[in-house]
């Protein structure tokens, strides 16, 4: 049946995101908060994350362009950003956040710039993947199990 096939594909898509390390357990936690009354909770949180973090990332970008880097400030921004990333289970993004903070602590300006580029890549990649996933989920329609097996 068309429906079942779509759901199978959706489940496969979802599993890949975990297998390839894009998402961690926290994403599953968010899925558990979804129900019939709040069927799009995860998508809402992810959308909010991307909207809310734009400004923060822009501030980091600007701070990295200065002649003298303020590592404390940069670390502070990244601490905030890492927090939100953790809340949605953005595994690869979190990893880059940690790398960035290491560079801040080491006073490694070039390292900060390098890891920030990497972070932006992961951030953008995840965004695309999740957008595709949510779009597909909407097409596939509601499933019986709100929370697929872990």
């Amino acid at each position: 049946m068309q429906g079942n096939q779509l759901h199978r594909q959706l489940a496969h898509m979802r599993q890949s995101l975990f297998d390839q390390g894009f998402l961690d357990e926290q994403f599953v936690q968010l899925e558990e908060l979804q129900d019939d009354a709040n069927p799009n909770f995860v998508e809402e949180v992810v959308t909010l994350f991307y909207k809310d973090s734009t400004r923060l990332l822009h501030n980091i970008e600007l701070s990295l362009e200065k002649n003298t880097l303020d590592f404390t400030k940069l670390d502070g921004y990244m601490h905030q950003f890492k927090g939100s990333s953790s809340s949605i289970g953005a595994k690869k993004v979190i990893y880059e956040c940690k790398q960035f903070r290491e560079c801040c602590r080491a006073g490694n300006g070039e390292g900060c710039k390098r890891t920030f580029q990497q972070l932006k890549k992961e951030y953008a990649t995840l965004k695309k993947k999740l957008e595709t996933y949510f779009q597909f989920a909407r097409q596939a329609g509601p499933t019986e199990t709100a929370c697929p097996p872990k």
Partner: protein
Amino acid sequence: MARNGVFSRRKWLEKSEGFDLSLSDSHEAHVLAVDDSLVDRKVIERLLKISSCKVTAVDSGRRALQFLGLDEEKSSVTFDGLKVDLIITDYCMPGMTGYELLKKIKESSTFREIPVVIMSSENILARIHRCLEEGAEDFIVKPVKLSDVKRLKDCMLGQDRMESEDRGINKRKSCETSDILSSSPSTSPPSSR
């Protein structure tokens, strides 16, 4: 640290019941959630609502105090309909930290009995110790999970039951707290308080 770095003085009360946090037939628990992160506020709000709580979410310690009527500029106001049963706050916030908020609440004769739970993305023992010392009921390492919120049930349900025994719990300093901290979570705590 065991598990998640979660540390609770009331761990021995933990039962594996459902996570319905409503206190009794008459009263659905009202939780005041404090977090400067928009994403985290959305998540904690949902976690609490799914656990049958009414939630008021604010973005700063200052707003939390204003809500409680503890803001210096305003005199204490009572909102009977908005009685707060639990305060859950982030530790790292600009302006007033969760720790500072905790202190202000514990210094208030009106609100010191409200259990305060601290959330932090950093699992730092000294920080946890400091918060518990100051009277925090529990310390949750972020990101917050449903199982963390389930445990909070005891903070609120336990409050009335334990109140007579635990009169001094929030004023208690060093000794007992260090004993609890140095023993493993599964060890049963002193039975008399």
